[in-house]
């Protein structure tokens, strides 16, 4: 299972090495990531544009309307803290499709597949001799998510390097107990443009 998972990750990451790849991401993001909004967490995202093109449509008046479209690879590192339940650390690469208008408002949607490690505090175990000991506890899971993003890219209109976004998402940790465990995550973040595509 783990070998397959590492192989898939390798394939995803390999796609970004094709062409003119630079280790420096196009954008770097930092976010608040709340499990069911209120249970706090955070995320750092390295965002690599894989492709960019313009989609031109004619309006009813015959004027051209241009939308900028992107596919992006996001490499996310983050954590969630749910008091009394679990702390989770994860690495979650995402493939994203996005579209921006000329004012910089943009939406995006994507999916991710990654790895999650949970840490379960305050765990006790009965030992073979009948004594009770505190133990370090936690599990390794595969993680997947699906999301929608809405935000504004200030570079498109104002040439400012900042972008802000709101990103509700549903994530699943698998295999879990006994099937899967779901999480609703609300992400609110900002991204800074490091280089042009």
């Amino acid at each position, binding site marked *: 299972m783990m070998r397959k998972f590492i192989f898939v990750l390798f394939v995803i990451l390999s796609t970004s090495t094709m062409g003119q790849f630079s280790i420096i991401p196009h954008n770097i993001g930092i976010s608040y990531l709340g499990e069911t909004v209120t249970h706090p967490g955070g995320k750092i995202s390295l965002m690599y544009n894989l492709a960019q093109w313009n989609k031109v449509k004619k309006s009813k008046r015959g004027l051209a309307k241009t939308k900028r479209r992107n596919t992006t690879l996001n490499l996310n590192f983050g954590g969630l803290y749910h008091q009394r339940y679990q702390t989770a650390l994860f690495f979650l690469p995402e493939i994203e499709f996005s579209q921006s208008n000329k004012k910089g408002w943009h939406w995006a949607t994507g999916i991710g597949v990654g790895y999650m490690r949970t840490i379960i505090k*305050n765990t006790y175990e009965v030992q073979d001799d009948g004594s009770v000991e505190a133990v370090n506890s936690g599990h390794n899971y595969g993680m997947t998510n699906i999301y929608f993003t809405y935000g504004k890219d200030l570079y498109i209109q104002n040439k400012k390097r900042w972008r802000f976004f709101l990103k509700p998402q549903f994530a699943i940790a698998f295999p879990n107990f006994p099937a899967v465990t779901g999480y609703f995550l609300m992400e609110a973040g900002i991204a800074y443009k490091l280089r042009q595509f």
Partner: protein
Amino acid sequence: MRISAYIFLLIGLTLISCEENFLLEENTNTQFNVRINDVELPVLVRGNTASKKIILFVNDGPGLPILDHAHIDLMNFKDIESSFAIAYFDQRGTGNAQGVINKGSLTLKQYNEDIFDIIRVLEAKYDQPDIFIMSHGFGSYLSSFFLLSYEDSNSVKGWINLDGNLLIQESTVWEYKHTFLVNIAVEEIGLGNNIAHWTDALDWSANNPTISKQAQKDQWRSYLGNPSEFIIPSEQRDLLTREAFDIIFTSSYNPFPALWSRNYKITAERISEEVNGTNLIPELSHLTLPTLNIWGRYDDIIPPELGEDIYDAIGTPSADKYFEVLLNSGHQPFENEPSLVSQKVVDFVGKY
């Protein structure tokens, strides 16, 4: 710089996740996990631990969580908690139990081990308190199976059985349900209530001594009505919006695995498969611990006629076993007559 500060903040959050205290106090609220065979079961201890008496609550099911309900006290146990502590736990395969397991470990034997280990941890962390088990519905099957299986269960001081389901043989249960309808009809006719309706029910019962077909079950139901519809009191109320928001946004609970996953179905199927066709009542003669049996008069799922046979079968001397029928309750007496349930439980636990 800002990013590195954020990373440190994240790591800090991870490491300082609050340690829980195990204090003997009048109003405790502690949650911890018990790891058993690579699965963590969350246990919430709430109430008066200073009493040195902890009631382990084994909830209905199979496959149902309880910590979400406990968080908002949906079972109305606050009055009990002011006298003693109650330990709630999400059973294996339900709610916020965590881990990566083989579904094959969803067995009664493993559930027994879970209860055993939770009791051991409660004893160790709370300075050897007296442990009582309180169970409801299918939870009573698990509890009695545990009490019968573990010789060491002598450490349990008493068992409170709330409308417990110890007979998983459908045809036999329907025999009890048949008697239940007859007895209710006779009572209601005696009280002068809806005489025509209940006379009709009596006639139908006489002509249908065995209830096995779906049409017969539907007819049986039509005489009694559904809970809160006619004579059967309401079952556990639905969550209020405020309570649901409380669980989702402010509690320690992750509602997704409890409510929106296949976990419930998988666990329920596994356990049901194992227990179907079994009857623990003949085994109850081996139990000798103090026992309080509380039944709703209008429990249409586990009728009090069956409850009385369970009470009779328990081997405990009659001075130390009790059978209380609550006249305004159905399958969930803690919903219908919470004060009375609390009072009887507090009296029982206080006595032993």
